[in-house]
């Protein structure tokens, strides 16, 4: 009897629930043309199952996800970053929470291979974004065993766990990129990975000056039930679209100015936090705060390095806020070879 290859991969739990491109030897060889690296080169073990990611294993998953060979260097670069100890992939794979490793890809290669940072960049319709992020997820499932109800205790998971990859809208940004703000050169190809939730959209077609605009965005950054407001370290990604970024830039604000002001505005009084959500005395103490000081301003961003500000999306009065995880993951960034 002829085997239906698409059904076969779904029945084996080797996919994310969607059909995959069947990894044949021929297709994997073609994918490996996307890198000069040795197929047997060991990249690392993917927790918690600790399945070994070799260049070839990564290429197999890139095929399954629907990638082109030129996408492979980004996936190889990203998975190596995600396996860094400080990123704590093990914890995120097992957590009850539902964050995903969002990849922000900066530099000329992102543009060359069509990673999208404009209209609809968090959503469907862009092959590079969709398949690069999906390849990462398939690796986390198949090699890492991060399967809901098996290796993962996630309660809801998140749509961002299907794919999570984008770039910045460099053509319409008034500022340097996230990578450049960290000292990388414009020609460097850089990936930043941060463990975050799906974006929460902030609509503001009223504000015409930065202070009011940023106050509105900050309101989405300090929710009572978020990890950011209660934990000593939790990353957050804020994507400002070109229109509100332009409002700030025209008022003379640099990227660093906006970053700093958001850190200052996002937060709420200790007494207010006690009214609901996951406030606990012990959590306040772990952050070094006096739990009895009800007037103390608790910042959502405990260290400026935890806020990753990007300019992305299309034209319109929206921003996107992605809250972080509270289990001890620090965002990672680095160059990758193309």
């Amino acid at each position, binding site marked *: 009897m002829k*085997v239906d290859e698409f059904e*076969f*991969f779904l029945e084996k739990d*080797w996919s994310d629930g969607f059909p995959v491109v069947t990894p044949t030897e021929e297709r994997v060889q073609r994918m490996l043309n996307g890198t000069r690296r040795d197929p047997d080169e060991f990249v690392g073990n993917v927790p918690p*199952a600790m399945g070994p990611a070799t260049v070839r294993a990564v290429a197999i*998953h890139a095929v399954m996800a629907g990638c082109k060979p030129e996408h492979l260097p980004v996936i190889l670069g990203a998975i190596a970053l995600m396996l860094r100890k400080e990123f*704590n992939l093990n914890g995120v794979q097992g957590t009850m929470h539902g964050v995903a490793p969002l990849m922000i890809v900066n530099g000329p290669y992102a543009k060359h291979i069509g990673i999208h940072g404009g209209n609809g960049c968090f959503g469907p319709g862009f092959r590079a974004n969709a398949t690069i992020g999906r390849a990462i997820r398939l690796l986390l499932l*198949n090699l890492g065993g991060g399967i809901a109800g098996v290796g993962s205790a996630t309660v809801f998971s998140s749509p961002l766990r299907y794919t999570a990859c984008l770039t910045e809208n460099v053509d319409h940004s008034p500022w340097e990129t996230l990578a450049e703000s960290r000292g990388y050169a414009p020609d460097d190809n850089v990936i930043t990975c941060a463990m975050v939730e799906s974006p929460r959209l902030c609509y503001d077609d009223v504000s015409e000056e930065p202070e009011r605009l940023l106050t509105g965005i900050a309101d989405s950054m300090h929710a009572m039930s978020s990890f950011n407001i209660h934990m000593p370290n939790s990353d957050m990604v804020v994507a400002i679209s070109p229109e509100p970024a332009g409002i700030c830039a025209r008022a003379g604000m640099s990227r660093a100015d906006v970053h700093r002001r958001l850190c200052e505005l996002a937060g709420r009084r200790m007494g207010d936090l006690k009214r609901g959500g996951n406030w606990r005395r012990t*959590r306040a103490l772990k952050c070094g705060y006096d739990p009895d000081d009800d007037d103390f301003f608790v910042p959502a961003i405990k260290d400026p390095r935890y806020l990753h500000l990007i300019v992305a999306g299309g034209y319109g009065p929206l921003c996107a806020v992605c809250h972080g995880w509270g289990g001890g993951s620090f965002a990672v960034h680095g160059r990758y070879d193309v």
Partner: protein
Amino acid sequence: MVKDLGFIDPTYRGGKARIAMAPRPVDLAGKVIGMIDNTKEQADVILKTIADALVERYGAARVVIRAKEHYTKPATDELIDEMAQEVQLAVAALGG
């Protein structure tokens, strides 16, 4: 390859050897019991309460409680080895 179907098995190979379960103890009398505190809030309170009950009600000789570095990280080999040396029965325990 998956048999002769022409597909590649994307899952990792090796490392899937079955490990036999340790024999289950019949009772706890006179035994040294280990508990691994996962470091979540109040895990220490919960485990201490259980430890006292195991000694008082079930005659355990004593209870050894050790903490992991962080609840999102696995116990280190050193911690597991230390437990294996010192206790006859170990419980990976949660707080929350």
